[in-house]
């Protein structure tokens, strides 16, 4: 549906987007991830024909953004970072105007306006001035505006920015709901959002493509080996951490044991095992046989946040150092 090849945007002195290439298949929902100023908005603006690329090509539904901008624009619904609304217009009037701009007319237009109002839950503010609506409603009107002509591709620039938690959830659900009918690209710097809504992630940093993969693959790739988190507690109020660590290391299949935290007689370990081996059963048995309590045992899925920081570099160590309680002990392998 969308093919981007070596897309580059240069401004006078800076390169905002540097040779990005990716593809999005029909019906997919793709998260466009990156810190602020990474070039997300610029890339989206190039896809929507708002900005012309300096080099490289981008095609949407088979049409090049430079050669057939009108055809591309007909097939794209776009929600910029701030919803493009006219405060002096009423909701229904505004949607009608946008619908007409996108080529709808007559009975079709009325039907679509009713449909998107229902879909985005804005029917109750149909006759209100847009300038008087709350941020959440404005965002939904923005979304309604983007889908009014039933476009093949939806491009959403930070659709949940500035909303309260309840509205964020509603908006996410709405976007997930729309995924079946449209191909969606949404940009965000909020990681859980991508984990929750997207199938595919494109990570960019400083204008360069860092990774593009499915959420699950990315998690697996960053982790390399499987790992579990295990919390062990001593029976009589004391726990000898090195002994526990030593015992856990002896379980077959375990490659590394890390003590992450110790509070009184409890200790939290992260246990890495060789790929493809399940060690959870053996770990549990070992702990119980040695006379300790097993408080917790769970697979440690690496959050996208960690992957993201790992891929875009830098910030991770600094943040870790700030947490005073964490005690990192390398095992004596």
């Amino acid at each position: 549906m969308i093919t981007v090849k070596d897309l580059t945007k240069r401004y006078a002195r800076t390169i905002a987007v540097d040779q990005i290439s990716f593809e999005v298949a029909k019906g997919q929902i793709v998260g466009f991830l990156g810190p602020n100023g990474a070039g997300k908005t610029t890339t989206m603006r190039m896809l929507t024909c708002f900005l012309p690329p300096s080099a490289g090509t981008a095609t949407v539904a088979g049409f090049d953004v430079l050669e057939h901008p009108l055809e591309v624009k007909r097939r794209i619904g776009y929600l910029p970072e701030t919803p493009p609304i006219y405060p002096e217009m009423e909701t229904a009037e505004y949607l009608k105007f946008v619908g007409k701009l996108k080529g709808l007319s007559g009975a079709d237009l009325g039907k679509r306006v009713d449909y998107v109002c229902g879909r985005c839950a804005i029917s109750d503010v149909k006759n209100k001035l847009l300038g008087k609506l709350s941020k959440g409603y404005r965002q939904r009107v923005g979304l309604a505006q983007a889908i009014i002509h039933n476009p093949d591709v939806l491009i959403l620039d930070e659709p949940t920015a500035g909303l309260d938690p309840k509205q964020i959830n509603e908006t996410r659900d709405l976007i997930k709901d729309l995924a079946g009918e449209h191909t969606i690209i949404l940009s965000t710097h909020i990681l859980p959002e991508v984990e929750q809504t997207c199938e595919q992630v494109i990570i960019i940093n400083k204008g360069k493509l860092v990774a593009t993969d499915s959420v699950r693959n990315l998690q697996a790739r960053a982790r390399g080996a499987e790992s579990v988190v295990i919390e062990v507690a001593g029976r009589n109020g004391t726990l000898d951490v090195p002994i526990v660590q030593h015992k856990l290391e002896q379980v077959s299949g375990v490659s590394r044991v890390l003590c992450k935290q110790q509070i009184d007689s409890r200790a939290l370990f992260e246990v890495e095992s060789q790929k493809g081996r399940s060690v959870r059963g053996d770990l549990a048995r070992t702990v119980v046989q040695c006379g300790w309590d097993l408080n917790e045992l769970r697979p440690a899925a690496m959050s996208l946040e960690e992957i993201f920081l790992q891929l875009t570099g830098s910030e991770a160590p600094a943040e870790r150092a700030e947490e005073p309680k964490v005690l990192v002990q390398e095992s004596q392998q």
Partner: protein
Amino acid sequence: MRNIWIICRKELGSYFASPVAYLLLTMFGVIFGFFFWNALGYFVVEGMEMQMRGQSFPMNLNEQIIRPLLSNVGVIGLFFIPMITMRLFAEEKRTGTIELLATSPVRDLEIIVGKWLAALILYCCLLLFTAVNFAFLFKYGNPDWKPLAMGYLGLLLQAGALLAIGTFISTLTKNQIIAGAATFGVELLLWVIGWVGEYETSMWARVLSYLSIITHFESFGRGVLDSKDAVFYLTLIFLGLFFTARSMESLRWRS
């Protein structure tokens, strides 16, 4: 064509949804009403004096009221036109709605012409006030309507040119005040630039006075359609809209 109309309707809606249009209409109505009352009062007093002296100097409504008033409208327009055009693009740039227009399947030129047309229609609404005043002349006197019609045509062309310049300047900034002030400055300059022609006859002075937006109105005011003057205004309209299109394009390249 359809898109031009859609944009135009929306712009007119915005003018009349905000106090802008009503403020302009009221101010213009009051100011022009005063001009008209003034001119008429002078005309009547002068006529009575002539009669008392026993002279029969020909009194002419067209020459003594309509013509000077129409050129006054051109001058009042200099003050009103920046207020009409300043928001056209500056406001869209400030609120980000320009992104909606630019990513809709509409050509830049359709957006520009639509907006310019809306501004021109609002200006026509202002001119309606003058028509109401002139209607009294027709009721109680017997002026010739043809020079009046030609005068209106001239005013429309002149306003079209000034509005095109204002539209262009509005694309240059996000700030309405700056757009308005700059438009006013440029239009004032285009008016006074012709004054050099009154005392200087060398080449450069004639060029400058040719550029003046007011001097080209004189033929229309007399009721004459001079193609030279019509072409001047049409060229300015074309140039203004052309530069607007270029400016919108460069907006995208620079952004």
